[in-house]
């Protein structure tokens, strides 16, 4: 049952985007988000939209997977839209009781919503086309300069990748604990919220205890295999830029220049 949950939203298929270096995709997503905040008018949005559309087609990921990410922020989208439409002062178009819909409000509201939609789709495009492993690898490399500021970049990446590896194991464990507790009469199906919350305790306590024990065991096993932090560590699959990555960087820079130029000219 719950064993089949897949975490992270990687969509397995072959495409140009899937093959690109994770560092490039992280930096690219970051630049794209910045570009969304630089554009001011309809042309800029058109450029950003077309760019995104091309990427979506290139990714071979069904569009509905990207829309899925929007569901989570639906409330935020509606809220942003409504607030902006009603509360922006300007030329009144329609008046409803105390609130006025203004021309400026419509403009700002729709821009905010489009911006958010692009932002979410753009970033889910990255997670959809990159395995969690490559993503953490990429993140570690991209954030490497922050090590100078004493930020534990390697450790964070290690934590993330171990967490990913342990998800199936802990899900299995959770399943076992739930079955064991149900066998002893625990009720997880109750309609009452208070009862449901109470029934979580006998699940979470053993789960925590075993997670602690596993953590201790794993730390010993890592030490036994000479783990001593990121210092002097090599990689089985080091990240290497290939030609496609350089081309992608070029495209990315061109896009960014276009956005900036568009902002200056219009």
């Amino acid at each position, binding site marked *: 049952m719950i064993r089949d949950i897949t*975490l992270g939203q990687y969509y397995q298929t072959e495409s140009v985007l899937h093959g690109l270096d994770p560092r490039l995709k992280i930096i690219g997503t970051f630049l794209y988000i910045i570009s969304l905040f630089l554009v001011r008018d309809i042309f800029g949005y058109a450029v950003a939209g077309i760019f995104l559309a091309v990427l979506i087609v290139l990714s071979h990921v069904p569009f509905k997977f990207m829309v899925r990410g929007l569901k989570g922020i639906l409330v935020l989208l509606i809220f942003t839209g409504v607030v902006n439409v009603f509360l922006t002062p300007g030329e009144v178009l329609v008046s409803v009781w105390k609130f006025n819909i203004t021309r400026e409000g419509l403009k700002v509201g729709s821009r905010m919503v489009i911006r958010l939609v692009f932002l979410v789709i753009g970033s889910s495009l990255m997670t959809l086309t990159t395995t*969690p*492993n490559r993503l953490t690898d990429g993140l570690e490399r991209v954030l490497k300069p922050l090590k100078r500021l004493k930020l534990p970049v390697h*450790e964070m990446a*290690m*934590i993330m*990748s*171990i*967490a*990913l*590896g*342990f*998800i*199936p*194991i*802990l*899900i*299995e464990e*959770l399943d076992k604990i739930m079955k064991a507790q149900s066998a002893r009469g625990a009720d997880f199906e109750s309609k009452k919220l208070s009862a449901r919350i109470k029934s979580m305790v006998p699940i*979470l306590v053993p*789960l*925590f205890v075993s*997670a*602690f024990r*596993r*953590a*201790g*065991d*794993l*730390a*010993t*096993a*890592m*030490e*036994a*295999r*000479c*783990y*001593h*932090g990121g210092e*002097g*560590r*090599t*990689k*089985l*699959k*080091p990240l290497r830029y290939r030609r496609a990555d350089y081309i992608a960087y070029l495209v990315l820079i061109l896009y960014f220049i276009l956005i900036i130029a568009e902002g200056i000219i219009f």
Partner: protein
Amino acid sequence: MKETGDRRQGTVLCLLFVYHKKYSFKETENRPLSPHLILKSMSLIKTDKVSYEYIRRDKDGAVEGINKAVDEIDLSVEKGDFIAILGANGSGKSTLAKHFNALLYPVGGTVFVGGMDTRDEEHLWDIRQTTGMVFQNPDNQIIGTVVEEDVAFGPENMGVKSRDIWERVIRSLKSVDMFEYRKHSPSRLSGGQKQRVAIAGVLAMQPECIVLDEPTAMLDPMGRKEVIASIRELNKTFGITIILITHYMEEAVHADKVYIMDKGRIVMQGTPKQIFTNVEELRGVGLSVPKVTELAFELRRRGVDLPEGILTETELANELCRTLSEAKHRKF
């Protein structure tokens, strides 16, 4: 999805453990190091009156009592040996095993690995590379999310070049017969397969000796067979020294030398044949001999003419056939 937070927590804690251990082991040791025994001992591993104790504390942290888990143990392991250390639960065998690659430091006495004192911090990583360790729970020692990445973890830590890591990974996976699973996720493998991946992970560090701490305790009979077969193969074909910690007698049958531990001490040592002859004595320390040996022992006690120390089914069958035909001859 409510549970994800808790799952993360576990890993965060795990890393905290690593941190804690990394920075705290320096303080634990203040006895002077022993001079190197490089020439004196040709043994791969040698322990000299090794003791270890766990201090029991009450809830205020005051010392309640001291448990001697390992009590003045002397043993030596030669290159290429297959050693089995047997003992009931709580006999101190796992604690002893952790001394062989400097996961624990002796409170008294010294452990030498390849001539290096395990308390010598300078050689910590050399020691851990010389003796690899495989643990009981297959789930709690797999670090990578793909089999080949897990096997690469050791060499990565040692700073081996990427191309050489690949070579090591491929060779190690082939020698435990798990090469075809290299792209799989470890969570989809059986217990026996996971344990063989763990062995491959140690092999990739090219150790001289592998210490296996009850590697089969959590496996089903099939998995147990697979793992023991792999271990024997490594010892025979590649000449890797094996120290097998177990409480299954059947697994010790093929060892060159068997040590029996009880209450932190070595109470018996010898070849499997010598050890398993003493059925009564073994029972005394909470161990039972292999079923075949026990059967032979009981038959002998009831007057059947069988030699002592029968270890395998074929041996017993042959001996029984011999006695039967002899009995027939006598009749005529």
